[in-house]
Each structure stands twice: as C-alpha cells, then as structure tokens.
C-alpha cells in the first residue's frame, strides 16, 4: 500500500527540488522537499510532487522507458529524458532544478508545445517518398552498403526534442529546422528506396536550412541515444554543396 512507501520515505533524506511553474510566458520556480530513494528517476521526482505535494503540477510522459520521447525537460540546466535519468547522476549539491524544455512554447509548468518541432520535421522533408508499392517485392538491400551504414548511424531517433532544446541556433534563428529534422532528412537522402532526393536537398537549403548550423554539437552532447546530428547535418552540407556546383553547370 501507499502508506508503506510513505513510512519508508520519512526515514530517508530529502532533496530540494525547484520546479518551474507557470503558463505561457509567465512563471517562476517553486521549491519542494522530496524524499530521496535508492531507485529514483527525475520523472519519479516530478510524479512524487504531483501525487503528494501539489496535484496541479503539469508535465508529460508516456512510455517511462526512453522510447517515446515525451518526458524531456531541462534538468539542472541541461535537456534530458527524465524517465531514464537517475536522480543521483544529476543531483547538484542536493538540489534539482527542473524546467520545461528550451526553445519550445510552454503549455503549462513542465509541459512544452512540440508542434513547431514536428512542423519543421515535415518542412525538412523528413518524410519518405515511395518509389514502389505494396504489390512490389521488398527490395534486396545489402545492410553493409555504405549508405545503409550511414542511415543506421542516424536512424534511432525518438524525436524527444532534446537536441532541439540544446541548440543555440534554434534559439537564435526561429526558421532553423533544427538537428532532429535535419538528421532525419539526412537518413532519407541516403535511402535508396526514396524518390524525393532533390526536393529534400532543396528543402534543407533554404533560409532555415542545414547551412545555418554552427557545429556547436550541443545536439551530439545531449542526445540520449548517442546520435550525431552534427555529422548528419555535415553530410547534408556536403551533398548540397555538390548539387550547388551541379546546378551551376
């Protein structure tokens, strides 16, 4: 029963958790004392506050095991997936500061509006364009082929928005498509099954395109799945550069 948990909790030490509260542009940090437990993620801390201290706290989560990318927040200044961030790894002097993800509008408290992130995913042509139908054979593709390896290195993105939040170019340039969308575009540029390569290269070459990236590599630094969007964006820069000379011929 829940009571048993609380009794154990009383004997434990507490941490101070500062949580951003507010709607839209208005907000402030509020402090909570939360019991420390041996097995405890940042999401567990947020959940504890909502269930035990302030029922009005808003946040978002779904799968709780790092697959859906719903629960990313700013934890002690850095964007992280909260469901798989153990508190002990990020606790700084007994303090945890939790804020919504950067570079996205806040809906309420810790829940950010990700729609712009996904709009840019589509704007970067992060969408497969088929060249075959369901009645054709599944193509034989050598998994060791160079372009496939390139895709494999970049495909396991869960669109959690952490790279987007870690990117200063996104913060400074509202048109910039951002690391995740461009990373996806790069996998498609390499996809031998895809039929929209030129359109995609054009889509990532505009005013908000891959060329705005300054290779700060905050995306690489913070991606929870160890992906490298900077390398993908560099790939796009290379391919568009090639097409630059082709178009000029």
């Amino acid at each position, binding site marked *: 029963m829940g009571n048993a948990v609380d009794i154990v909790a009383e004997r434990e030490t507490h941490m101070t958790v500062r949580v951003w509260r507010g709607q839209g542009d208005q907000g402030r940090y509020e402090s909570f004392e939360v019991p420390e437990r041996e097995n405890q993620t940042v999401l567990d801390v947020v959940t504890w506050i909502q269930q035990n201290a302030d029922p009005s706290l808003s946040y978002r989560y779904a799968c709780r095991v790092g697959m859906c990318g719903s629960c990313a927040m700013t934890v002690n200044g850095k964007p992280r997936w909260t469901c798989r961030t153990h508190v002990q790894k990020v606790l700084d002097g007994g303090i945890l500061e939790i804020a919504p993800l950067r570079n996205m509008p806040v809906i309420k408290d810790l829940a950010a509006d990700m729609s712009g992130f996904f709009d840019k995913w589509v704007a970067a042509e992060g969408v497969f364009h088929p060249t075959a139908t369901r009645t054709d054979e599944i193509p034989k593709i050598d998994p060791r082929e160079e372009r496939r390896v390139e895709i494999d290195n970049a495909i396991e993105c869960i669109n959690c928005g952490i790279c987007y939040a870690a990117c*200063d*170019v996104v913060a*400074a*340039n509202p*048109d*910039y498509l951002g690391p995740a969308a461009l990373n996806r575009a790069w996998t498609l540029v390499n996809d031998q099954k895809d039929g929209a390569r030129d359109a995609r290269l054009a889509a990532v*070459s*505009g*005013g*908000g*395109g891959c*060329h*705005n990236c300054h290779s700060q590599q905050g995306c690489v630094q913070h991606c929870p799945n160890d992906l490298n969007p900077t390398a993908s964006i560099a790939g796009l*820069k290379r391919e*568009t*550069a090639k097409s*630059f000379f082709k178009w000029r011929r």
Partner: protein
Amino acid sequence: MLDLRLYMLQRITAILMAPLVLTHIAVMVYAIQGGLSAAEILGRTQGSLGWAAFYGLFVAAVSVHAAIGLRAILHEMAGLRGTGLAIFTWAAGLGLFAMGARAVYAVTAA
C-alpha cells in the same frame, strides 16, 4: 538566414584565405623583428604586382567572408531579418572592400 549560396560563398572564401592568412602571418613574423617602418613595408610592396594581387584577392575574400559572418551574428544576436539584413550584408561587404582596396592601392601603387 544562411542559404546554400551564402554558405558556399563563405566556405569558398574561407578555403581561399587559409593560405593567404598563413602567408600574411609568416610575413608579419618575419617583418616584425627589429620594429616596423613605413619605408620597410612600402619598399617591399610598392610596385609589386605580386603583392597587389595577393592582397587584392585577400581583401576581396575577406570582405565577402566577414560580411556573411557579421550577417549571421546580427541575425542571431540582434534579430535583424529580411531587407534590413540584406542591406546590412551588402553594406558591410562593399564597405570593407572599398576600404581594403584603397589600402591595397596605397601600399602597392608605384
């Protein structure tokens, strides 16, 4: 803000300038010993078509490169966009080029 065309211009000028910068630094390191004098510098450069071409190219490249770099900074840090940004970029590029060309002429004209 930075599209493919501007990006390519900036990267091409960068690659172009790498050897120019190295040479420029080498000359500085060489020339600085024992102090600088106008006569020493001008004796080397005046009437030299080679130095005129070298610094002419350098000035042209740096004008483009710096104008695009400043454009990025102004957009990202001051939020300047659209026509204002375009006017600034051209002004910065042309201004730098005009001043640079005058300087190159000054030190290389016979």
